[in-house]
């Protein structure tokens, strides 16, 4: 359960990104990209986020989470595929060393201000 730490960092980064000259800013949504293999549980993250944003410009902001698929590439034969199970062995050459192209993201892409 490390979602609280992630939520705290998320809040810190989002507050820093707010324009300083804006009076009483209110954030409508935060747009996140979370990799499928990143062991972040979206509803735990949302729960922690709601708790720690009370009385801040982020209160009531929605977390829009885009799930990034796990994409793997085989170093030996170059095959690239999307994994929907934790099988990271190349389906073509079997023994190949593989690397993960995406799937571990824990990124904040942008935030949207209320009109």
């Amino acid at each position, binding site marked *: *359960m490390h979602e609280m730490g992630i939520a705290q960092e998320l809040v810190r980064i989002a507050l820093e*990104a707010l324009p300083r000259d804006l009076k009483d800013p209110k954030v409508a949504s935060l747009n996140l990209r979370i990799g499928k293999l990143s*062991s972040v549980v979206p509803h735990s993250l949302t729960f922690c986020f709601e708790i720690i944003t009370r009385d801040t410009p982020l209160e009531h902001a929605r977390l829009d989470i885009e799930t990034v698929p796990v994409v793997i590439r085989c170093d030996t034969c170059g095959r690239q595929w999307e994994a929907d199970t934790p099988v990271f062995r190349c389906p073509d050459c079997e023994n190949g060393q593989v690397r993960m192209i995406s799937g571990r993201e824990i990124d904040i892409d942008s935030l949207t201000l209320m009109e």
Partner: protein
Amino acid sequence: MEIKIRKNILEKNLTEADKNRSFFREKKVFVLNMMSSPGSGKTQTLCRTLAQLMPDIQVGVIVGDICTTNDADRLAKTGAKVTQINTDQFGGDCHLTAPMIDTAARQLGCDDLDLLIVENIGNLVCPAEFDIGENARVVVLSVTEGEDKPVKYPLMFQVSDAAILNKVDLLPYLEFDAALAVENMKTVHPGMPVFELSAKTGQGFEPWLEWLRQQL
């Protein structure tokens, strides 16, 4: 209005981990991050490992735990320099972060060390997510857990450079399928070396020690 940010939320930890890496490079110390679920036998594996490596190799250990100094007390008996991080003061975190390692490594002093082992908090989820500035990661699984742990917690096995399958002395008394467990590890991380051993009896210990010596 949309404001672009494009940042890794764990960026601060990654920056601190890079600082740790520079510090360890400067001190010429190799850092190993040991991870596992609770009760897999990490501490006993380390006690035997230290007994075999020292005094030729100078080893220090940072032990992470939510509460108690039990593991640090056991490891200190080997003669290694040991320091404890209790995370309850940080809200009982279930993993170690780069800033915690920075504090502990400076407290321990790394000048005369060849190898620094970080015994991470027992948990197969969160420690996999936090870079602490280590050179290599090892995951310990024991035969009293399920064979399917690698596919249930794939990230932990994906990010590890080697795995230990511990407590193999108990295999005659269990229905644990060791071959299947190893197969599951290799499914998640093809090519990862797996050392089947018993930290209690010392069975199968030499290949693990050899791998570790080669890393230094």
